[in-house]
């Protein structure tokens, strides 16, 4: 079993964060989203992984993952170039996969329970493919699968008006080698892409059994800023958080807090977990860091009230205002305007930024 990890896409819904890097490297609980996928693949016994690159972030992704040895896996890079669809991405991996089966994992997805059960379920039968499903409240917004009592997929419908089930396809699939011949027969859809759902549908029409596995724990597609915050909250809720850094006497630290050994919480600061604070970051006196916040490396918080937020790193935040539900890109600084005249906020804001003041 091989792994194909999709790491292309423009990340347009995550601008301006993705102006400077690929969406798969946005950190959740101080770890790039893509690393969760690598860990899930490894845990499922998949150690030969093809990482499919688009136009954006090729160098950054290779710099982070390298040859995979630091994760105990072996990585081959596959350059898809134009985003011609998920089935095109899979097709680009044909020489890498060879005669094997493979797991295809969308690199901006993150899920609680990993993929071992999905892979095992696929391997227990003679299936053309296996798909991960999750129950959703709004099935008209998703690709939906109809399944029989044994969990075999009988039908796939894209955003149905009258959904037969509430089981949505999430971004993780297992494919037999048969999919490659199917992809070769596919035609681009109305949007000019080779659709993975068309590939699965064709496998089904060819008489292949399609296995399904309902993912019980949470699952998040981290395509939008609010999804990053939500994923951050979910991961911080579950993760073991270790206090290894310095907590000065006179600091108030409550709940579960991950504090890197080089990070500091100074006297007069309050940190209420779950919170993650990365290397070389300092929480100064008068600062409040509230639940579900991750503070990336090399950041200094000077008297701010910050909660339910992700600070990617290299930031100085000294505003006396409260910052909540926010995503701050690398090197973003938020100062204070209290003593400045004329009264008012001062902004230097990048393209596609979103502010609520």
């Amino acid at each position, binding site marked *: 079993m091989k792994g194909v990890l999709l790491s292309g896409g423009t990340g347009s819904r995550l601008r301006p964060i993705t102006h400077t890097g690929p969406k798969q490297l946005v950190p959740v609980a101080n770890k790039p989203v893509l690393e969760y996928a690598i860990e899930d693949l490894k845990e499922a016994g998949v150690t030969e992984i093809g990482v499919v690159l688009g136009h954006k972030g090729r160098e950054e992704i290779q710099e982070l993952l390298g040859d995979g040895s630091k994760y105990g896996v072996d990585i081959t890079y596959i350059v*898809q*170039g134009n*985003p011609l669809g998920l089935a095109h991405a899979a097709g680009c*991996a044909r*020489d*890498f996969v060879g005669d094997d089966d493979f797991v295809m994992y969308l690199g901006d997805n993150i899920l609680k329970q990993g993929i071992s059960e999905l892979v095992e379920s696929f391997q227990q039968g003679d299936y053309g493919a296996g798909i991960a499903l999750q129950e959703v409240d709004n099935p008209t917004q998703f690709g939906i699968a109809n399944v029989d009592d044994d969990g075999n997929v009988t039908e796939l419908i894209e955003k149905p008006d009258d959904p037969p089930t509430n089981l949505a396809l999430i971004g993780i699939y297992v494919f037999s080698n048969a999919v490659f011949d199917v992809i*070769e027969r596919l035609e*681009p859809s109305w949007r000019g892409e080779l659709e993975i759902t068309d590939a699965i549908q064709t496998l089904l029409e060819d008489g292949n059994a399609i296995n399904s596995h309902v993912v019980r724990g949470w699952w998040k597609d981290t395509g939008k800023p609010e999804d990053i915050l939500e994923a951050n909250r979910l991961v911080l809720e579950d993760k073991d958080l270790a206090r290894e850094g310095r907590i000065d006497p006179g600091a108030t630290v409550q709940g579960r807090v991950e504090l890197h050994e080089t990070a500091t919480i100074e006297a007069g600061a309050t940190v209420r977990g779950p919170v993650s604070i990365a290397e070389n970051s300092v929480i100064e006196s008068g600062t409040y860091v509230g639940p579900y916040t991750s503070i990336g490396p090399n950041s200094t918080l000077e008297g701010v009230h910050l909660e339910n937020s992700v600070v990617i790193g290299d930031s100085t935040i000294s505003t006396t205002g409260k910052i909540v539900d926010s995503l701050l890109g690398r090197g973003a600084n938020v100062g204070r305007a209290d003593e400045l005249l004329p009264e008012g906020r001062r902004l230097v804001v990048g393209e596609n930024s979103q502010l609520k003041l």
Partner: protein
Amino acid sequence: MRIITHTCPQCGTIVSANELESSRVMKCPGLSCESVLRFDDLSDEEQEFFVNHREQYRL
């Protein structure tokens, strides 16, 4: 749709034909690889097929 790829002989990075064709001659996208990859590295048959079906590999 037929998907044509080329594997860098030096580092093993796999590059799609649409990527090779868009620049004809390119430095291998493998991070520390110095190889030069060319559309001409594909077989004659692959090049001809790609050129005859170029439109479907564009957006």
